[in-house]
């Protein structure tokens, strides 16, 4: 079984995933997923609904425990993602993680303190500028549209200058301009050595930022592509049409 699954390896990986399996009763969400991620790259995780993309990211972030297999973040294997690793990850999930009754600034401050960010007020302003929500800092989150909330959520993920970003459909609800901004942001982030793991339904968006890709179907790695042109070729070859942005 394992031998038939494509495995992508690289030198000096920042993350090694080995034989990762997650079952919910008899339902298999992930089956023997193995790959490793080099620093400074952007891995695009694609696949149809229910392929296990979200489960994979949740396990990597430490929100869900795997049934079997190991993860090594930054060269150390562990069962449960430890505090030191969590401090270096920036995560965006399907939920905003924001308290709707607090203002944008209050939410960001709260997370800045949880992540022990130095000079929180300066940093909060910085990330707000990054996603262009400075004008909204004193608005309650409840009053913002989903797209604006998503931008705040992205700012939240950048707050503590993480080494790795785990982004589960970060482009949800973003308009074309914000999406463009996010793309530029991720490019700049990677130029500074940051690593990105990303899922998206909008392949075109993914193609613009990804350096390599991993295709999941029913919990298994079906194919991997190691450079952007290959990613593009593989994706356009797929039966499923590229989702229009």
């Amino acid at each position, binding site marked *: 079984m394992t031998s038939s699954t494509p495995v992508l390896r690289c030198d000096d990986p920042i993350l090694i995933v080995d034989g990762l399996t997650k079952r*919910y*009763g008899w339902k*298999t969400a992930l089956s023997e997923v193995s790959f490793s991620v080099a620093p400074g790259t952007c891995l695009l995780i694609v696949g149809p609904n229910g392929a296990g993309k979200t489960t994979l990211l949740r396990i990597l972030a430490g929100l869900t425990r795997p049934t079997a297999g190991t993860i090594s973040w930054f060269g150390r294997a562990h069962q449960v993602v430890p505090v030191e690793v969590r401090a270096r990850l920036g995560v965006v999930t399907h939920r905003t993680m924001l308290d709707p009754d607090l203002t944008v600034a209050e939410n960001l401050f709260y997370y800045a303190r949880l992540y022990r960010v130095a000079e929180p007020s300066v940093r909060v302003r910085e990330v707000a500028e990054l996603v262009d929500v400075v004008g909204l800092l004193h608005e309650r989150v409840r009053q913002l549209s989903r797209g604006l909330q998503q931008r705040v959520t992205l700012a939240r993920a950048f707050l503590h200058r993480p080494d790795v970003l785990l982004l589960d459909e970060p482009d949800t609800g973003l308009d074309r301009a914000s999406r463009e901004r996010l793309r530029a942001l991720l490019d700049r982030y990677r130029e500074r050595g940051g690593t990105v793991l990303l899922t998206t339904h909008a392949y075109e968006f993914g193609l613009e930022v990804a350096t390599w890709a991993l295709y999941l179907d029913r919990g298994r790695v079906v194919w991997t592509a190691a450079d952007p042109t290959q990613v593009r070729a593989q994706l356009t070859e797929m039966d499923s049409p590229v989702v229009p942005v």
Partner: protein
Amino acid sequence: MAKRSSGLSWLAVLGGASFVLVALSVAMIFLYAPADATQGDVQRLFYLHLPAAWLAYVSFFIIFVSSIAFLLRGTPFWNRLARSAAELGFIFTTLVLLTGSIWGRPIWGTWWTWDARLTTTLILWFIYLGYFLLRAYITDPERGARYAAVLGIVGFVDIPIIHMSVRWWRTLHPQPIVVRSEGPNMPTEMLVTMLVTLVAFIVLYLFLLIVKYRIETVRDAVLELRAETAN
């Protein structure tokens, strides 16, 4: 193959032994043991009541130990053992409550009394119920196993406290007549019957626990197979 058949026959011996012992103890309860001087024939329930009560609490102790081991090691063995002991414990707790109630009717003149030990056992029954609900309502069995282990630990630690609080609250249960420093205060025939019944219950319990454990193992294997074929 040889290993499997020897395992089966070993279990069959245990099953046969428990059958013979239970039959023997039933015979002794009704034919050998004398009727109690004050309580009459109803007292014969005691032979059933006491071992059941002990095993109800022993089961929770097994859950407690398995839960700790499961949280430390994460091996399926401990999870299955806890699951098996919980089911048996629930059955024996129900048995204690029923026999206690039937016994209490002629002796105390009421089906139920808020006596300390009876009340603690009733609460134990509810804790077992919560344990099953927890396992049933958490859809991911792995997570359910972890949470059930936490409940197994917290619940076991709570039982003596519950008992203490209920005892301070009120009590009218007959004082212990079996375990006493100057020796048990009952006729020899009664004591022998009691001991035989206790041994019979323990052997039966072991037999049921192993059978139940095997069922749980098969259930896990089926789940595994289903997971593999579903892909």
